[in-house]
């Protein structure tokens, strides 16, 4: 079985044409990227605002309860409802994007909210103390400090979306899911297995890239890897200004 999958993965015919691995991988990456951009555009500002203002915490709970919605069922339902009103490829793409965005929003929202919420009150107070306005506090203190949790939310969303974007194939779209659906339909198990391996590999690579990006953008002061660790841990703040 493993040998047959390997043969499929390495044969030249698997790598060419519209049904070839490069094209399917590109489609898969395209759907995933579109979904993540839309989900981040919704969830990051919302999560940051909730964490910053302390208002609307119940939204995070509501969003988290969305995780219980089965994505495949939702996709079929959305297709049935939306398709009569849409034309061409959009009729298949839009339901799929909505279903996947709903999957991606909860982890990103939780990450953004929790990241901002968990910022050390001492740092926030210090920023106010040096005369920063709320907007500046958000941009220069809260957001950089929230990055590790925000990034992990994004990475977990990316992992889920890449793994789940295979369902696009159920509604007649492309992507790596085609290998799974077509492989099962034609009893071509090497193809099914090969497709599954590719999805897993793609998700792993995306997560590794995410980890590298995170390592670059997160301030060394937060990760404990910086040289100025000692100073960050014991900031010189006038007595009485610390919350703890």
């Amino acid at each position, binding site marked *: 079985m493993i040998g047959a999958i390997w043969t499929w993965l390495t044969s030249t015919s698997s790598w060419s044409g519209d049904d070839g691995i490069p094209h399917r991988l590109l489609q898969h990456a395209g759907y995933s990227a579109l979904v993540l951009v839309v989900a981040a555009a919704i969830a990051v500002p919302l999560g940051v605002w909730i964490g910053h203002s302390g208002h609307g915490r119940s939204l995070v709970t509501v969003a988290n309860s969305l995780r219980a919605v089965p994505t495949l069922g939702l996709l*079929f339902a959305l*297709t*049935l409802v939306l*398709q*009569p009103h*849409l*034309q*061409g490829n959009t*009729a*298949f793409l839009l339901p799929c994007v909505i279903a996947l965005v709903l999957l991606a929003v909860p982890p990103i929202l939780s990450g953004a909210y929790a990241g901002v919420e968990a910022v050390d009150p001492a740092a926030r107070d210090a920023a106010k103390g040096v005369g920063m306005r709320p907007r500046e506090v958000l941009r220069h203190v809260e957001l950089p400090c929230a990055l590790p949790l925000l990034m992990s939310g994004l990475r977990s969303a990316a992992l889920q979306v890449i793994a789940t974007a295979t369902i696009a*194939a*159920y*509604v*007649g779209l492309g992507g790596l899911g*085609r290998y799974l*659906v*077509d492989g099962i*339909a*034609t009893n071509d198990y090497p193809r099914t297995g090969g497709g599954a391996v590719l999805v897993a590999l793609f998700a792993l690579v995306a997560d590794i890239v995410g980890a590298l990006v995170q390592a670059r953008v997160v301030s060394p002061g937060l990760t404990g890897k910086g040289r100025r660790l000692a100073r960050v841990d014991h900031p010189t703040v006038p007595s009485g200004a610390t919350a703890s």
Partner: protein
Amino acid sequence: MKRTTVTIAVLAAALGLAACGSTSNPLGTGSASSSSSAAGGVVTVGSADFSESILLADIYAGALKAAGINATTHTGIGSREVYLKALTDGSVQIVPEYTGALALYYDKTFDKTDPAQVYDALKSLLPTGLTVLNRSAAEDNDSMAVTKATAEAKHLKTVEDLKTVAGSMTLGAPPEFQTRAQGIPGLARVYGVTFGTFRPLKGQQLVQALKNGQVDVANIFSTDPSYATDGFVALTDTKKLFGSQNVVPLVSTSVADKVAPVLNKVSAVLTTVKLAAMLKETDVDKKDPSAVAEEFLKANGLG
């Protein structure tokens, strides 16, 4: 009583009726009733586990009862492998079948397509103890469906008519249609029909996509209820690319003479359109298949 059961079981084993003897046989209870049915002259009509097969079994049993033959049903037995075993071990005596698919089951290289040829070849392929009665005109086969509007706008009646217009059309079909010999390669080889784009979809999704215009032509079963509900038009497969899948009663030779006159009358009146309309009632309107079968028999003077 217990001793009698044991004796019957031993006798049955001795007679080789339990030759397939797997303990996991889901038809265990069916076998027990068969020993009594043989004595009481009850004919059991079995069926596969999909609604059309169940409906056909109800039609056969209803017609037999109306003709004064003591008949009962054992529906939803399972796949072909399972119900054929039930037929050979005597738990059931009749099952509804399809000519092409059954022939292919006994001969993996079967490639005849003409309805009469398929039927004749099937007769010679059947193992001893089994026979088929007359075939009906009703077929549950692959079909190419278009909406009424498309059929009128592009003057489509047969699959051949697609030749000039297919290039600008989208075909919707289950994923396997893309590679199967009777699928896209077959359409190109036999009819010279090549579609502009292919959209892999199946089941209700495919029906919806055809209805909503995301695909122009769809490969669905000829008895799909959507033919009745959505007014789709089936393009005639003039060159028999999809072969022949006529509905035919597969019966045990022990009861063949007794049931043939009745079931041949049923086959004579059964058509694809009637079958699709009945399936719409059982699958879409959720009516009881035996009630639908009874209506059909009454309407055709067999009830």
